[in-house]
C-alpha cells in the first residue's frame, strides 16, 4: 500500500464536530466530507479560521502540523496539547468552529518486513500517529504492542488512545517509573525480531534511533519540527542525514528510516 495519500490542492475549511479532554490533551474531531483517507503517519497543517493571530506575542501566524490520530470516512481526529499560542488557540475551539486544513501530507509508516513484529513506541503527544497505525495493524490481524511514555498521570491519560499499552511515567504515577526506552529495551531483550515505530520528543527519538542502531533493529521514526508550509516549499523542517545532507521532514518524512539519519537533533 502506498505510504502517501495525495492532499487536495490548497487549504480547505473543515468544521469541528467534537472536542474531548483526555487528561492534559484535547482530542479534536473534524468533519472532512469527501476527504481522502490518510495513511497512518501522515499529517495535516491546521489553523483556526478565526482568531489566528493576536495571541501570545501577537502569534500564531503560520499553521501548525499535527499527525492524524484516527480517521474514518469523512472524519478526522487530532491529538493536541496546549504548549504555545497555536496549540492554545486550537485547543480552545468548540464544535461548530472552523479550521483551515491542508493534508494529508508527507509519507506514512511502511509495514514491517521479514515477518518482523511491529513494536510501537510513543512519547507524549507523539502517541497520536501510533493510534491510527495500531488500528490498521490490528485490523490486519497483526500484533501491535505499544509502549508509551508520559510526564505524569495527567499526560498518561493519553495512553487510553491505544489498545493495551505498557506505560512509563517520569514521576512513576502510572506504570513504570522511568523512560519509555526502558520498556523498549525490555521488549527487545525478549524478542529482537521486530520493527520499531516511534514518535515522540526529539531526545526520545534519538535514544530509540541509537538503541535500534546498536541492536540492528529496523526503526521508523515519525519526526516533528517547526514547519511553515508542510509541503516542501519553505525548506525549514530539515533533519541531518548520514550522507552529510538534510532531508525535509514534511515531504521526505515525517516517517523516516532511522538508519538514514545521523541523529535526531534536539532543539
Amino acid at each position, binding site marked *: 500500500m502506498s505510504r*502517501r495519500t*495525495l*492532499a*487536495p*490542492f*490548497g*487549504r480547505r475549511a473543515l468544521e469541528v464536530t467534537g472536542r474531548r479532554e483526555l487528561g492534559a490533551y484535547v482530542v479534536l474531531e473534524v468533519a472532512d466530507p469527501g476527504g481522502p483517507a490518510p495513511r497512518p503517519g501522515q499529517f495535516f497543517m491546521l*489553523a483556526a479560521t478565526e482568531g489566528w*493571530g493576536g495571541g501570545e*506575542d*501577537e*502569534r*500564531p*501566524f*503560520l*499553521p501548525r502540523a499535527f499527525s492524524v490520530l484516527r480517521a474514518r470516512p469523512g472524519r478526522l481526529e487530532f491529538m493536541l496539547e496546549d504548549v504555545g499560542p497555536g496549540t492554545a488557540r486550537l485547543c480552545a475551539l468548540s464544535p461548530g468552529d472552523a479550521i*483551515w486544513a*491542508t493534508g494529508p*501530507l*508527507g509519507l506514512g509508516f511502511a509495514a514491517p518486513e521479514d515477518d518482523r513484529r511491529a513494536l510501537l513506541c510513543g512519547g507524549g503527544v507523539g502517541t497520536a500517529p501510533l493510534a491510527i497505525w495500531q488500528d490498521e495493524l490490528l485490523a490486519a490481524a497483526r500484533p501491535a504492542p505499544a509502549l508509551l511514555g508520559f510526564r505524569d498521570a495527567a499526560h498518561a491519560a493519553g495512553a487510553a488512545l491505544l489498545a493495551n499499552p505498557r506505560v512509563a511515567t517520569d514521576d512513576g504515577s502510572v506504570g513504570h517509573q522511568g523512560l519509555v526506552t526502558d520498556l523498549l529495551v525490555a521488549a527487545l531483550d525478549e524478542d529482537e525480531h521486530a520493527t520499531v515505530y516511534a514518535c515522540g520528543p526529539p531526545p526520545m527519538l534519538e535514544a530509540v534511533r541509537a538503541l535500534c542502531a546498536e541492536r540492528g533493529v529496523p526503526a521508523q521514526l515519525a519526526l516533528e*519540527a*517547526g*514547519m*511553515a*508550509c*508542510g*509541503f*516542501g*516549499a*519553505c*525548506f*525549514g*523542517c*530539515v*533533519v*541531518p542525514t548520514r550522507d*552529510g*545532507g*538534510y532531508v*525535509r521532514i514534511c*515531504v521526505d518524512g515525517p516517517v523516516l528510516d532511522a538508519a538514514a539519519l545521523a541523529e535526531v*537533533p534536539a*532543539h
Partner: protein
Amino acid sequence: MRPRLAGLELAHPILNGSGTYDAIAAHRAFGDALLERFPFSAYVSKTITLEPRAGNPPPRLYETPAGLINSIGLPNKGLDGYLADDLPELARLPVPLITNVMGATAGELAALVEAVDARAEIAAIELNVSCPNVKTGLDIGADPRELEAVVAQIRPLTAKPLIVKLTPNTADVPAAAAAAEAAGADAVSLINTLRAYAPHPRAPDRSWLGARTGGLSGPAVRAVALAQVRAVAQRVAIPVIGMGGVQSGRHAADLLAAGATAVAVGTESFRDAAAGTRIQHELSDLFAKSGDNAAATRSV
C-alpha cells in the same frame, strides 16, 4: 489584465517569490491538481548556485508577530543538478520559467548565466544579489557601483530577460535599482527578506537559528515593501516586480498602485498552497468592480 514583464506576457499579475514554492515537492504532495490549477503566471525557481549547497543547520524557522524569519541557506543541487534533475520536471509547469541564480564571483555568475541562457525551457533569468562579496563581506546588491559592474558583466552573456532581485538591506534601494537599470537589467524585483534575528526562547543570549541570523517576511514587512517599491518605481523606467507580505488582492493592488507591474506571493503560500489563485481572483474582482485599474487602487 495580462501584464507584459520584460518581454514576457503573463496571464495575470501574480508570480511566486524565489525560494517560496518548490513546485516539484508540491507536485509530490498534491499531484496533478497542482499543474491543473497552478497558482502563478510564471514560476520563479529557488536560487541556483554553481555548486550544490546543503543549506543552513536547523533550526531554520522562527515565527514572529505576523511574520516569519527564515534562515534556509539556499539549499540546492547546484547548476548541473538543477539542469539535469529539476528543469525537466519544472518544464511541465503550464507557465514560463524564471531561473534565479546567485554567484559569489564574476566567473561563477558567468558560468551560471551562460548555462541557463542555453536552455530554451527557461524564459528569463533572475539574479539574486544578496550574496556577500568575498572580499568586503557586503552584499553585492548593497553597493550600487558593485551591482552595476556585476550586472554589466553578465548582461552580454544572455539575450533572455534579466531581472535583478534587489536587497532591501541597504541604505539606498532606489540607487541600487538605478544601477541595475543602467547596466542593462530588464526588470527589478523587491523586496527580499529583511535581515532579522531570533532570540532563543530559553536562552535569550543566543540565537534560535542554526545560522544565527535570517530574513523576515510576511505581513510584518508589507509596509516596508510598499515604501521601497514606490521609491524604486519612481526612480527607474524598467518594470518592477513587487512583493512583501501580500495576503490578498487588496495587498496586490496596493503594490500595483505603488508602481509594480507584477506582484509576487511568498510567505502566504506557506499558509495556503493555493493562495496565489485566491489573490489573483480577488485582484481581478477588484478591477472588475472598479472598471479600471487605476480606480481599483488606493493611495497609501
